[in-house]
């Protein structure tokens, strides 16, 4: 037995830890005295327990020590001082402040803009009540390549109803077709984008109705539902339900409902929906269960918790059960289920419905956003470290007074967060002005709405803190490591360890900027190449007009002659498709019926004048002739590639025959046309056959004299109006051609934009650093001048270090740029080679810009009178 039990150790230690040091001794004495007495009175265990409770009850303000290493609970004056010092150092170094805040603002602006774009792109089709349960069917026909893809989103007419019939987990399914149609009301005609859809449409897509009933709106044939804005346009403010509209085929359609205008972030762009039961081709395909004819989009909702993949696995069995008369079709259909939320960014499939985003650009732009922001952060780091020498005394003094390291780190990180906040304010202003421009460039209605966009404000706060910490941490750690004694003695010079990291940061910055410059150059060159490449046809001075309505189609000959009587008009041709983009294709066989000799071939229907208007060159045989009675169905012109694919030289091809899978009878080749680019340069020239087809023409192509353009267009319009109620829509062929490369063009514009910005930011950083180094070396420069150095010599010395960094950046950039641009170019079947001069030019440009940036500071330093720089020693 212990005669003198000691008090429990842990509570005692706890007490010693928290107690104010001034009180520690006597209170501990009191505790012990009481403990000793209690041991006598109540026994050791009770005393220990009571000792513990006493210690706990002493844990209260008044006894607890202050937690600050210095003292005092009140840091207010310290923070006030931090702000004051920050503010003063910002004002004292206006140039650096400007570069820092400006650079961060530009970086943040880019980031916010791209964030808004990405957010917009990802927000498509989420507004339906059951959006997460809506899916669609798309399919793959292995080997049936069209425009480089064997996926497409069309499906057979009976698919939607079969889905609901066969699978209980499919709750509603609807078939959709797109059509732009002419709607007539009283004397007015409206050319509007619309959808055909069946009665289940509003079960799947829950559009809110202004007038009418969603359950019955599309039940009867010849009913039509309008959007609020179209209803306003046609009927004004009144309720149009029950009114009739004349559809383009002349039938009266009854308005059965009005829906609110769909939001902008929707894939389906339409202003009316008409009942699919009036769609002749659909009804025909539906009644005859044509599983081989794919012309409609099938969308459906699934029950909650139903697995779309399970459904997908059941689809082949369904197809086998229903395909019926489709046995002879050479390609097998494989169906896939896809959620609605993915279709906006789905671009691999052909014939897709709706407005498309571009997932590749989305990730590329996100990358650029991060890179530009990093560039700005790097600037901040560099300048902050550089400036820290000027603030070394402050740091030294703070340390002497008793600041500990983490306080200084906190101070500097806080400072950089503050600067990032200032940058953000500026960035929000800039973004506000730039969103319309940027949105126009991307063709998206993006806007900066701080209140409605609930993600924005928290996002920006997080962004500022991250940017602040990211860019402030290195300077903070660096500065807080300075030794007070050395600093206060003034023994710190420019050659400190930070310089090394700074140089690498500059190298990295320039590498990124140069990568962007090279990319812009390559994209620009490729674009020029496309513009100037020999296409095989003439695209200049040709006006194209879509042919709509039977009256115009019946009067094509009349209108042609009317136009040709004018000297301004050099030629008129009709065709089913324009030569810029031939999309329809078929399958032929060179008459031996062996399946492996099947050739997938593009086809287009033209009139007698087509080859002449487009200046296409026949390298063998003849054009279609109106004299020859047999030309229409049995005589075809093919292109060189087709002749080669069929195993003939152009000359051999003439008179040879082939069969077409879908049409009976042998076709004879009467001519071979020189290859021309009928698709974008992404794709190699494919086999093509040209047939005579004047009854299904889709376009009028008019070759005109380039002068007096408006007059010529007026002539075209007057004749057109005589035969068509449709609006006179014309496009120049070269415009259509450029449309093919819109994505590339946009990419190019983007790259130029971001290249300029990244160079701007990198230059700002370099400028700041150059100014700083020049300032650091004033004495050295003064002595050099006294000893007889020339201005050029000094500028050279100052510039040399920086140019070395740019050169290192350039070397780093070459492989990166080469890799990325190689990837990009690989997507084109016809492309330029990357040449050394593109790299050299980018490097040279970077050098010149860098030299220009640093020269003003270097020359200023070199011109200073040595007396001024040396006198205050």
């Amino acid at each position, binding site marked *: 037995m212990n005669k003198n039990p000691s008090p429990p150790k842990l509570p005692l230690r706890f007490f010693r830890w928290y107690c104010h040091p001034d009180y520690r001794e006597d209170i501990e004495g*009191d505790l*012990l*005295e009481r403990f000793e007495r209690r041991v006598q009175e109540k026994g050791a265990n009770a005393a220990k327990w009571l000792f513990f409770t006493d210690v706990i009850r*002493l844990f209260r303000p008044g006894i607890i020590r202050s937690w600050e290493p210095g003292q005092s609970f009140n840091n207010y004056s310290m923070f006030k001082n931090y702000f004051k010092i920050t503010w003063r150092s910002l004002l004292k170094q206006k140039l650096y402040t400007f570069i820092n805040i400006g650079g961060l603002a530009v970086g943040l602006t880019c980031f916010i803009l791209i964030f808004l774009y990405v957010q917009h792109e990802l927000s498509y089709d989420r507004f339906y009540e059951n959006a997460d349960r809506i899916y669609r069917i798309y399919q793959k026909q292995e080997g049936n390549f069209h425009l480089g893809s064997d996926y497409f989103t069309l499906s057979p007419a009976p698919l939607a109803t079969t889905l609901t019939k066969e699978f209980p987990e499919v709750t509603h399914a609807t078939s959709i077709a797109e059509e732009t149609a002419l709607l007539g009301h009283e004397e007015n005609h409206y050319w509007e984008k619309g959808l055909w859809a069946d009665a289940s449409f509003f079960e799947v897509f829950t559009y809110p109705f202004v007038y009418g009933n969603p359950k019955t709106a599309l039940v009867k044939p010849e009913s039509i539902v309008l959007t609020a804005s179209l209803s306003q346009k046609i009927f004004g403010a009144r309720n149009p339900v029950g009114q009739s509209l004349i559809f383009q085929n002349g039938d009266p359609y009854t308005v059965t409902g009005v829906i609110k205008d769909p939001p902008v972030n929707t894939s389906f762009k339409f202003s009316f929906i008409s009942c699919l039961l009036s769609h002749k081709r659909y009804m025909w395909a539906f009644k005859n269960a044509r599983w081989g004819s794919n012309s409609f989009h099938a969308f459906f909702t699934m029950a909650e918790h139903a697995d779309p993949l399970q459904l997908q696995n059941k689809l082949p069995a369904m197809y086998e059960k229903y395909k019926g008369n489709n046995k002879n079709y050479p390609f097998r259909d494989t169906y896939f289920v896809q959620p609605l939320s993915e279709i906006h960014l789905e671009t691999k499939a052909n014939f897709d419905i709706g407005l498309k985003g571009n997932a590749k650009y989305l990730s590329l732009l996100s990358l650029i956003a991060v890179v530009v922001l990093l560039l700005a952060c790097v600037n901040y780091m560099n300048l902050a470290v550089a400036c820290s020498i000027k603030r070394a005394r402050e740091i030294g003094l703070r340390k002497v007074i008793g600041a500990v390291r983490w306080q200084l780190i906190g101070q500097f990180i806080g400072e950089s967060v503050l600067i990032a906040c200032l940058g953000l304010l500026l960035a929000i202003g800039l973004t506000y002005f730039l969103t319309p421009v940027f949105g126009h460039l991307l063709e998206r209605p993006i806007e900066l709405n701080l209140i409605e966009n609930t993600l924005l404000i928290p996002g920006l706060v997080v962004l500022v803190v991250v940017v602040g910490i990211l860019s402030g941490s290195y300077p903070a750690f660096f500065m807080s490591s300075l030794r007070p004694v050395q600093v206060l003695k003034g023994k710190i010079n420019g050659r400190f360890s930070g310089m090394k990291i700074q140089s690498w940061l500059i190298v990295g910055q320039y590498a990124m900027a140069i990568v962007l410059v090279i990319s812009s150059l390559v994209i620009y060159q490729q674009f020029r190449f496309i513009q100037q490449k020999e296409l095989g046809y003439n695209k200049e001075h040709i006006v194209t007009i879509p042919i709509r309505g039977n009256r115009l189609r019946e009067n094509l000959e009349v209108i042609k002659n009317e136009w040709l009587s004018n000297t301004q008009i050099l030629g008129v041709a009709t065709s089913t498709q324009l030569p810029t983009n031939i999309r329809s294709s078929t399958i032929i066989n060179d008459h031996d019926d062996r399946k492996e000799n099947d050739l997938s071939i593009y086809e287009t229907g033209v009139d007698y004048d087509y080859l002449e208007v487009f200046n296409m060159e026949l390298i063998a045989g003849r054009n279609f002739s109106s004299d020859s009675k047999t030309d229409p169905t049995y005589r075809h012109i093919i292109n060189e590639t087709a002749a080669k694919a069929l195993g003939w030289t152009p000359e051999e091809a003439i008179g040879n025959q082939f069969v077409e899978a879908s049409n009976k009878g042998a076709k004879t080749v009467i001519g071979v046309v020189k290859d021309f680019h009928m698709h974008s340069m992404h794709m190699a020239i494919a086999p093509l056959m040209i047939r005579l087809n004047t009854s299904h023409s889709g376009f009028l192509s008019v070759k005109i004299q380039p002068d007096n353009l408006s007059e010529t267009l007026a002539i075209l319009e007057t004749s057109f109006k005589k035969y068509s109620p449709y609006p006179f829509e014309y496009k120049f062929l070269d415009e259509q051609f450029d449309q093919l490369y819109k994505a590339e063009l946009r990419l190019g514009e983007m790259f130029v934009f971001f290249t300029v910005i990244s160079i701007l930011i990198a230059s700002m950083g370099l400028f700041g650093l150059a100014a700083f180094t020049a300032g650091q070396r004033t004495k050295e420069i003064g002595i050099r001048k006294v000893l007889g150095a020339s201005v050029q010599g000094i500028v050279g010395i100052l510039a040399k270090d920086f140019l070395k960094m740019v050169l290192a950046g350039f070397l780093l950039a070459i492989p990166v740029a080469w890799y990325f641009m190689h990837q990009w170019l690989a997507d084109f079947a016809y492309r330029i080679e990357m040449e050394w001069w593109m790299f050299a030019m980018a490097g040279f440009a970077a050098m010149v810009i860098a030299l220009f940036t640093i020269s003003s500071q270097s020359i200023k330093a070199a011109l200073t009178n040595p007396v001024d720089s040396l006198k205050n020693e």
Partner: protein
Amino acid sequence: MSKHHLGEFEEIVMLTVAILYDEAYGIAIIDEMEERLGRKVSIGALQTVLRRLEKKGYLSSRFGEATKMRGGKRKRYFTLTSYGKKVLTAVKEQRVGLWNAIPKLVFNE
């Protein structure tokens, strides 16, 4: 008058310190209060009040000699300052004034 406001517990502590005169340290004060008022007081409650009164200038303190008891820790003795005495007197006079102002009838029943 409210210039020298004293809480009830504060007042008792000061009075006890006065009673103990030269021997007023933590445990002694607690014992005294327990004995005279039958009131249990924790060290924590007492010590905070003592420090507060010292900070206000009503009490002053000094260390005693180290002894073998109490783990060799010194005691801290508290005494009233003259300011503290004045405040205590003022409080007393207020009370007496109040008592005197009570009509005789109230307590004569």
